[in-house]
């Protein structure tokens, strides 16, 4: 099913015309209303009238997360406060959060785009959607709530936590779809097992999962354990919240709702625009927002775009699963690699648990000739034979070379070395920041 066939299956030439028209409007709108955008455009010598084709977007300045911080809280807002009907915020684990104000029209668009996403995932008004994203300033909770209601599905605003109660509601209310993080889907399964609840053969059939990176392996795991179709939803507080893009059951990338968002792929190092199809950082310009439109927001997410019409019939470009964050990208002799790629290679070598750290030299700013990867020697890979340890080292080096085409020096380290970098596993560390022992 397609909720907005006129837009979702629009021929791309027509779509691009619509995007250009909306882009021109947005640029003129922010230029007039926000000093930050006016100043940064003037610095680059660009005026709203200079936007004549869609590719002219590349002449506009980027907006980064830092710009949101610098203009906290309402420095990027285009409307007077009485037009703002609600405000959301990013979690802001480091410093001030990103503030996202919405006009009534923004909320309506958001609800409509989340509803479109849910239909794209295969939901109808017959479904009961248990929304286990956190309610509050986080966009995930209310975003899915608005969208589910807009669709006419039965929304259960379960919010996060209280897993036993979640399971009770799934069973008692006959929940068919759940929206939560992929890791929470697995927690649900674990707890269900402890309580002897059979989720696999239950009413649940669909997972709308997002808000954290996950892999194809994790998808297979979730689908096999919960007996559901698990699909990816994408969004950012800076742009709108969830519903910027959504996977369809063909599982071949997330459809970006391009009638509302203009997507670009850039080289994260040079900032140059790359053709669709090449891997790079996703950059988004909003096309219909009122309260806080954004020009060329650098998402830091690494993906590539597919513009061929999907098997579902939609013409909207699809972004493939995010392979990493541009902050984490490392360049070795011109080859870009992400810690996640290194991790998957380490995983294929028998017995290796992915406890590792990549050491870079900031002097050579992400352009080292050789990578050094510290791999923790756990009990499963420790041998009393030196020859076996040396073989492991060589095997890892060879595997990284053949799969990723990078020269890496594998250094086997004691567990204490990596234990110092607890919490969110910090995978890339500068030589100067190495733990002092």
């Amino acid at each position, binding site marked *: 099913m397609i909720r907005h066939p006129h837009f979702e299956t629009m021929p791309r030439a027509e779509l691009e015309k619509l995007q250009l028209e909306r882009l021109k409007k947005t640029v003129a709108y922010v230029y007039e209303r926000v000093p930050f955008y006016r100043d940064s455009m003037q610095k680059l010598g660009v005026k709203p009238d200079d936007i004549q084709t869609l590719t002219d977007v590349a002449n506009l300045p980027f907006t980064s997360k830092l710009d949101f911080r610098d203009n906290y809280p309402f420095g990027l807002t285009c409307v007077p406060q009485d037009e703002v009907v609600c405000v959301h915020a990013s979690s802001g684990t480091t410093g001030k959060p990103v503030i996202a104000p919405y006009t009534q029209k923004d909320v309506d668009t958001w609800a409509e785009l989340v509803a479109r996403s849910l239909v794209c995932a295969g939901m109808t008004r017959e479904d009961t959607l248990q929304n286990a994203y956190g309610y509050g300033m986080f966009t995930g909770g209310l975003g899915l709530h608005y969208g589910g209601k807009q669709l006419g599905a039965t929304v259960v605003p379960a919010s996060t936590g209280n897993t036993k109660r979640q399971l009770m509601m799934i069973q008692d209310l006959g929940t068919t779809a759940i929206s939560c993080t992929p890791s929470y889907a697995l927690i649900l399964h674990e707890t269900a097992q402890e309580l002897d609840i059979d989720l696999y053969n239950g009413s649940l059939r669909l997972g709308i999962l997002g808000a954290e990176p996950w892999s194809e392996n994790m998808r297979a795991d979730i689908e096999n354990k919960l007996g559901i179709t698990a699909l990816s939803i994408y969004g950012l507080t800076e742009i709108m919240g969830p519903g910027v893009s959504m996977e369809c059951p063909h599982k071949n990338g997330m459809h970006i709702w391009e009638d509302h968002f203009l997507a670009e792929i850039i080289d994260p190092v040079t900032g140059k625009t790359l053709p669709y199809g090449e891997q790079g950082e996703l950059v988004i310009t909003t096309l219909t927002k009122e309260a806080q439109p954004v020009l060329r927001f650098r998402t830091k997410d690494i993906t590539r775009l597919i513009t061929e019409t999907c098997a579902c019939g939609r013409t909207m470009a699809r972004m493939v699963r995010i392979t990493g964050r541009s902050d984490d990208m490392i360049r070795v002799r011109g080859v870009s690699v992400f810690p996640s790629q290194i991790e998957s290679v380490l995983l294929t070598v028998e017995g290796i648990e992915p406890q590792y750290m990549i050491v870079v030299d900031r002097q050579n700013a992400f352009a080292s000739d050789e990578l050094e990867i510290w791999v923790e020697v756990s*009990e499963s890979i420790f041998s009393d*034979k030196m020859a076996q340890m040396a073989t492991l080292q060589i095997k890892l080096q060879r595997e990284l070379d053949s799969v990723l085409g990078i020269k890496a020096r594998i250094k086997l380290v*004691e567990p204490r070395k990596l234990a110092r970098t607890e919490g969110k596993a910090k995978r890339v560390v500068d030589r100067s920041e190495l733990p002092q022992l």
Partner: protein
Amino acid sequence: MKIKQVSVFAENEQGRLLAILKALEITCVNLRAISVSENADFGIVRMIMDNPEKGAAALKQAGFTERTDTLLTAEIPDVPNGLLKSVVQPLSDGKVNIDYFYAFLEQEAGTARIVLKTSDDEKAEMLLKACTT
């Protein structure tokens, strides 16, 4: 005969052997033999202890990656060509490769004892037995 060996992974850095011995200090485990195999980055510290279970637990507790293996051990007569005649020649004749070995003195018996890991411990044991009888 068999003997238990505790091995520890240690980076090739100043102070690591000290840390291993410090981890064992309070256990009062007696080291009967120790051998280190090293390269530029790391070493494998292999130890024979009077109480390997206690020693291994203390090392694990201290955060080391350790493992316990059961190894072959043999007594060597304290005479010229003792090692050649009683161990190396018979193993070589039997086409058994020695991965590593080290020796220590048996104070009471007044003989040397070697600990060894081979490509085929079962066969090696038979070859050594046949040699002593």
